[in-house]
């Protein structure tokens, strides 16, 4: 069966895309996984200036997941273009994630990277920098999105927070004329050290990822498609197997991203794609046919 899908004019050979962050800039990942087999690759978030990131520990192990506090470490857009961009493979859709603090930051990075990308993902929801996440401020969000739009004709993706009302966030995105939302970033959480009486992380909270949290993201994907039929949704969070990809598609996702699972076992992404193909063969359905099917009453 056909796994391909087209989003805003961009052709994905299959719906499986790597999530921004856990796989860095791809140089290490592509030693294990051929870019030719995945639908797309999302770069780690790039900011105008280099960011050192947070003090260790940056990771806390939790049951069935991970708590991270990387702090958007990245070399800054100029070094990114010089060192990384030349190696970005065109064998899959190239998504570059852009970040920053204000509209100028985002516009600046978008302008510089857009010609190297097929799509631009606007990271409005990093849990690991500053105070509030950007998307909690609707005015700021609108300005950032219109700034990015002015810089490129390539499709933009707005990456939302799972900690806030996704319908309200999607309204802002939709009002800004953006057609694709990514649901979503890692959820805020904390753990405390019972030997010291202190939080494990310097900034107390970090971002939660992994399979434990998939039902939360699934519900939000469903909610957004229920409220905004016209928005294209990328489902993200906790995928470890082809069955999970099916659930996201059924809930409403056109593309499904995988972060933590690919990070701990890069080769598993290939198995997920193969298993997905087999599941669709058994159902005799193209991938496109299952996208959003729960809103149409399920399979018939």
């Amino acid at each position, binding site marked *: 069966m056909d796994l391909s899908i087209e989003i805003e004019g961009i052709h994905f050979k299959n719906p499986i895309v790597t999530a921004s962050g856990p796989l*860095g800039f791809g140089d290490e990942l592509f*030693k294990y996984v051929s870019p030719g087999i995945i639908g797309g690759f999302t770069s780690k978030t790039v900011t105008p200036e280099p960011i050192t990131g947070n003090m*260790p*520990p*940056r990771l806390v*192990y939790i*049951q069935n997941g991970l708590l991270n506090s990387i702090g958007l470490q990245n070399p800054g857009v100029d070094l990114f273009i010089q060192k990384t961009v030349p190696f970005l493979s065109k064998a899959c859709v190239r998504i570059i994630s852009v970040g920053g603090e204000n509209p100028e930051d985002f516009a600046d990075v978008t302008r510089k990277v857009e010609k190297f990308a097929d799509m631009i993902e606007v990271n409005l929801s990093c849990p690991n920098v500053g105070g509030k996440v950007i998307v909690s401020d609707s005015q700021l969000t609108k300005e950032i999105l219109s700034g990015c739009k002015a810089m490129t004709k390539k499709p933009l993706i707005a990456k939302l927070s799972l900690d806030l009302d996704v319908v309200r966030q999607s309204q802002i995105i939709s009002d800004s004329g953006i057609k694709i939302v990514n649901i979503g970033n890692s959820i805020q959480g904390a753990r405390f050290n019972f030997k010291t009486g202190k939080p494990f992380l310097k900034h107390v909270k970090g971002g939660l990822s992994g399979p434990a949290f998939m039902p939360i993201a699934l519900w939000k994907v469903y909610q957004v498609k229920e409220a905004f039929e016209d928005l294209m949704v990328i489902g993200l969070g906790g995928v470890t197997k082809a069955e999970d990809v099916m659930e996201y598609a059924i809930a409403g996702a056109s593309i499904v991203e995988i972060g*933590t699972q690919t990070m*701990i076992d*890069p080769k598993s992404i290939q198995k997920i794609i193969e298993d997905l193909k087999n599941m669709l063969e058994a159902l005799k359905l193209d991938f496109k046919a299952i996208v959003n099917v729960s809103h149409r009453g399920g399979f018939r």
Partner: protein
Amino acid sequence: MEMLKISEKGSYVLLELPYNGKAMPGQFFTIKAKTGPYIPRPFSVYELKDGNLKFLIKAGGEMQQFLNEDIIIDGPFGNPISKIDDVLLIAGGVGYAPIHFYALVYGFKEMIIGMPDDELFDFVDIPDHCVYVVNPTTPVDLAKLSPLKNILVCGPHEMIKGLKRDLPESTLYAIMEEKMACARGMCEGCAVMTRDGVKFVCKDGPTFKVSEVDLEWTYQ
């Protein structure tokens, strides 16, 4: 397939697996079972001999409850340590694992082992000609008495700090440990601050020249 040896009071485990590949001192593997933990945990090689790979594991964490199942290892990861001339080896607690493997492969001049308890001391193989201490004396105090200037250490952060402070003339190498997720230099999780900016234990280490590392750059 694999064998488990558990120390007297159950605080330490030796995990032994058949393994036909290679691994060098300084390198580590990640370990998990099919049912968990979700994030594989990094462990240094304690021994590799005749197709048998051994790890020395501190009990009490999430990993332990999965050790009775079929173990899945991935690796080796990290850069091998080259032989260091006239080396003084220093180990603290289960930091003894990579030190033991180093000693097996390259030998050593002197070794000081700091053990939190007799239980661990009785549990591991210790070469004949080496000194050991059990708290409260620390290996740092003994190291000051040694004439050797090249030191390789693996142990608690505080021990490495102590050596750096008290032995400013020595050339100090440390096998560093930070929580890891990818073990492949992708996730930027296992950060240490060096003279050249942030480096990653899994990709750039795990062995670092201590003079180049900012040991204060941590929230502990």
